[in-house]
């Protein structure tokens, strides 16, 4: 037997094919199996834009990338080690991500003249030498699949749908896995149609067996388990994590969670996920539009529930007026913005961090609102809880920024015990004694929150300026100034809730690489790599976009240079300069894609050179 086994530390695999090819499913199952190997992992699905394009077209390509390792990893990976492509369009779209000498598994069966035309290939790329740099395995997966299940009498369309399990079987073989876990998963899923269940199982087995019999690859790989702490794990996308976090926060506060939502990519899954949680006490309301959805959430908060609303950039714009009302009414509200590439409709399935400005400043008048940004799919869970905690304690809307990259990407999550999550005291005002609607808590400056229905506390609130303490309508100039200041001071005080800042990399370096939101993984990766290469830089990650951490500016001022890699035209850099850190500079990328660690490393090295040469 000439197949070698090789132990490797980390690897990036991508499945790519037509939308109809089931690549998300194949990738997802491979990730699930990988998790059971106790590897650390990150995934990054990439869906075609919005609608199902014609089969075989470039616009219809769907892919799923997974990075897994025996050591902790930060990102879904810059370059792919193994690329599986199910048709020419997928090759065209995804080849650039494959590293030179990488393994390319091609479903030769789809490499037909018709499909070349759809993908815009003048000739067969398998034959024109253009793939010489790679280790190409061109295998007719279509025919092999057909052969494996010819006797089942399935329609050709249905047969083609099994290609993905065949490919999955091949990859499982390549990484020295078993197929039993996936087989039982198929058993558990395809309960209605046993023929399809059997077909999928057979194809999976056949794909796996192909390695055993045909030995199509010279080497099989094994990625050892990583040293994750003991405990229960699950794989979680950002959207799932936000949903779970909010439900937990509600339960910890003894509040019902009310989600008002209107579907929009890439935020809709939060509605879908929470809609399934009614047994946990969650109410979901698909409203007629974004305005109604935030309005309903605010109404629920007014009634004493935890109101939540979710959208993406354009829909968040529509919520601005109601956010202003929430600021004035001083009621808890959590607003999730799952950012996508803009402006306007932009590129709805692509990622971007360009709604920071809108989150900070997109309201009329002086309407300060705390803004948190989640750093990874799992971090979405903690961020959601913190957002709810602040919203409830300070009676304020809180904005959480996530993005398409976090929303759909996943990573293993060490499931916490609910007991280890601190309770949240909604601190409802229940006694008429000394009650006044805008009489603030001297510590937090929060106003009382009354659960409607409490006798003796009847009162009226609204969007007009209110008199300090009494909450009555007031046009008094001094009162207005006082109230504007009080609201600002209250929100500014939120920073007292934050934990300490944690520098990483080389804290004594002259240069600080500052990240925020979903780019944490890539930036962490880049800082580590630079330090490892002997280029000392420090790293720092910001979750609290507003108000800023009290220590942030002092820390920034300790460094000669502070660079902020961000997926926009430099919004956080702008904010930091405005707050007094005039030496901050952004490293921008705005391509609808996430940072690659390698690109970041290069950018930082180059910028360091520029600075040294003083230009």
């Amino acid at each position, binding site marked *: 037997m000439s197949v070698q086994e090789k132990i490797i530390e980390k690897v990036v695999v991508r499945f790519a094919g037509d939308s109809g090819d089931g690549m998300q499913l194949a990738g997802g199952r491979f990730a699930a199996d990988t998790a059971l190997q106790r590897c650390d992992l990150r995934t990054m699905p990439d869906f075609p834009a919005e609608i199902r394009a014609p089969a075989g077209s470039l616009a219809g390509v769907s892919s799923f990338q997974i990075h897994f390792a025996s050591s902790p990893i930060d990102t879904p990976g810059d370059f792919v080690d193994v690329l599986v492509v199910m048709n020419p369009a997928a090759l065209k779209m995804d080849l650039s991500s494959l590293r030179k000498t990488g393994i390319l598994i091609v479903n030769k069966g789809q490499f037909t003249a018709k499909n070349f035309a759809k993908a815009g290939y003048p000739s067969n790329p398998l034959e024109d030498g253009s793939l010489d740099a790679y280790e190409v395995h061109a295998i007719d997966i279509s025919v092999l699949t057909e052969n494996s299940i010819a006797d089942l009498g399935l329609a050709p369309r249905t047969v083609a749908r099994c290609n993905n399990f065949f490919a999955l079987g091949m990859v499982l073989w390549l990484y020295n896995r078993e197929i039993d876990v996936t087989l039982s998963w198929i058993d558990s899923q395809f309960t209605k149609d046993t023929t399809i269940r059997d077909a999928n199982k057979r194809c999976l087995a056949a794909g796996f067996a192909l390695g055993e019999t045909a030995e199509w690859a010279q080497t099989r790989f094994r990625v050892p388990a990583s040293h*994750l702490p003991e405990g229960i*794990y699950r794989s979680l996308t950002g959207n799932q994590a936000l949903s779970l976090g909010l439900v937990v926060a509600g339960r910890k506060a003894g509040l019902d969670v009310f989600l008002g939502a209107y579907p929009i990519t890439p935020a809709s899954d939060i509605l879908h996920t929470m809609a399934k949680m009614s047994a946990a006490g969650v109410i979901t309301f698909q409203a007629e539009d974004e305005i109604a959805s935030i309005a309903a959430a605010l*109404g629920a908060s007014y*009634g004493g529930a935890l*109101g939540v609303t979710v959208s993406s950039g354009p829909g968040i714009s529509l919520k601005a007026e109601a956010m202003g009302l929430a600021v004035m*009414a001083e009621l808890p509200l959590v607003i999730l913005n799952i950012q996508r590439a803009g402006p306007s409709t932009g590129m709805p399935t692509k990622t971007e961090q360009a709604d920071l400005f809108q989150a900070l400043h997109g309201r009329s008048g002086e309407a300060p609102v705390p803004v948190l940004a989640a750093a990874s799919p799992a971090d979405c869970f903690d961020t959601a809880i913190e957002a709810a905690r602040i919203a409830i304690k300070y009676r304020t809307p809180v904005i959480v920024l996530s993005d398409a990259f976090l929303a759909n990407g996943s990573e293993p999550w060490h499931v*916490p015990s609910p007991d280890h999550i601190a309770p949240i005291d909604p601190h409802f005002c229940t006694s008429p004694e000394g009650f006044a609607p805008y009489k603030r808590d001297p510590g937090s400056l929060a106003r009382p929150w009354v659960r409607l229905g409490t006798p003796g506390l009847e009162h*009226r*609130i609204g969007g*007009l300026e209110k008199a300090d303490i009494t909450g009555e309508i007031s046009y008094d100039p001094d009162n207005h100034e006082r109230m504007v200041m009080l609201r600002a001071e209250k929100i500014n005080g939120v920073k007292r809730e934050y934990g300490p800042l944690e520098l990483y990399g080389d804290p004594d370096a002259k240069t600080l690489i500052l990240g925020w939101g979903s780019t944490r993984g890539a930036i962490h990766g880049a800082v580590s790599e630079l330090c490892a290469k002997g280029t000392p830089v420090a790293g720092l990650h910001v979750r609290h976009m507003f108000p800023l951490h009290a220590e942030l500016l002092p820390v920034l001022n300790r460094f000669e240079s502070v660079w902020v890699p961000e997926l926009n035209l430099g919004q956080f850099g702008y904010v930091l300069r405005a707050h007094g850190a005039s030496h901050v500079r952004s490293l921008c990328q705005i391509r609808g894609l996430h940072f690659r660690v390698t690109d970041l490393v290069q950018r930082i090295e180059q910028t360091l050179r520029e600075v040294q040469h003083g230009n």
Partner: protein
Amino acid sequence: MGTDAKLSKKDFDAGVDVRWCPGCGDYAILSTVQRTLASLGVAREKQIFISGIGCSSRLPYYMNAYGFHTIHGRAAPIATGLKLARPDLDVWVITGDGDSLSIGAGHFLHTIRRNVNIKILLFNNRIYGLTKGQTSPTSGRGTRTKSTPGGSIDNPFAPLPLAIAAGATFVARAVDTEAKSLQEVLMAAYAHQGTAVIEILQNCNVFNDGVFDHITGREIKHDKQVQLVNGKPLIYGSDASMGIAMDGLGLRVGKIGSDVQAALLLLHDQAASVGQAFAIAQLEEPVAMGVIRAVAQPTYDSEVTARRPLREEDKSSLEALLRGNDSWSIGARIKI
């Protein structure tokens, strides 16, 4: 304050300065609303008034109850969220023709189609009062205002037919100053399970004075209004000589005996077909007053509630939720 105590109008008076123009029809409505709540004997703390923006939307400030004066056009969805989260409360929406039919038209109709159990009091003065007199979606063609110096060219909405077309389970109409019938309508709305839409013809004596005089004028009102009584024929006129009968897919209005036959007069039925409610709501002369439609249908909030665990202990375990169906453990496989 329990529901038992004998309540008076004053119990629902917030005791603050009321700031409408002297002579505004809103005063009369406020007073009837307060009196109605008192006579219903409801618990003050369970009455929640949600309004948008407009003169009419100031009403919550004057009610000794819970109140939220929100933003323009959005009272209905705010009330919806509130009612879904707190089905135990009575939720009233106070809105104007601009608030609910212009900027809020979508919300208004969506709330109606869902049949959320809230009561919508639509103060229709056919003008934007608070912004000092521009046409509203109910202003008649030709109305001259600051924004339409040449006369409006918009065709007005008829709020109740529109509500009926959206699936309203309860619609009624009343006049600001007719306290008795307004109160009756409010009581019926309160009793109704589902969205109740009450159009109140309200005089804005500053920017649209007398716009309803041709309907509500003391001398003519009996000739220009028909009071609906369930099960009773549609008869009106100072001498009860006029009647309304079916005529094709519409209604015929005329003198009983000559124009319309007494035997063929339409009997009012609040639960009649949508077509009948639509026709009655559309009548322009006479205008139908009282409860036009009231039909029983499941409410949105009751269906939401039915799907929820209402006691804390019935809620699914957090632990199970966090683990999901696909967790694994480092140490031993638990479940895949």
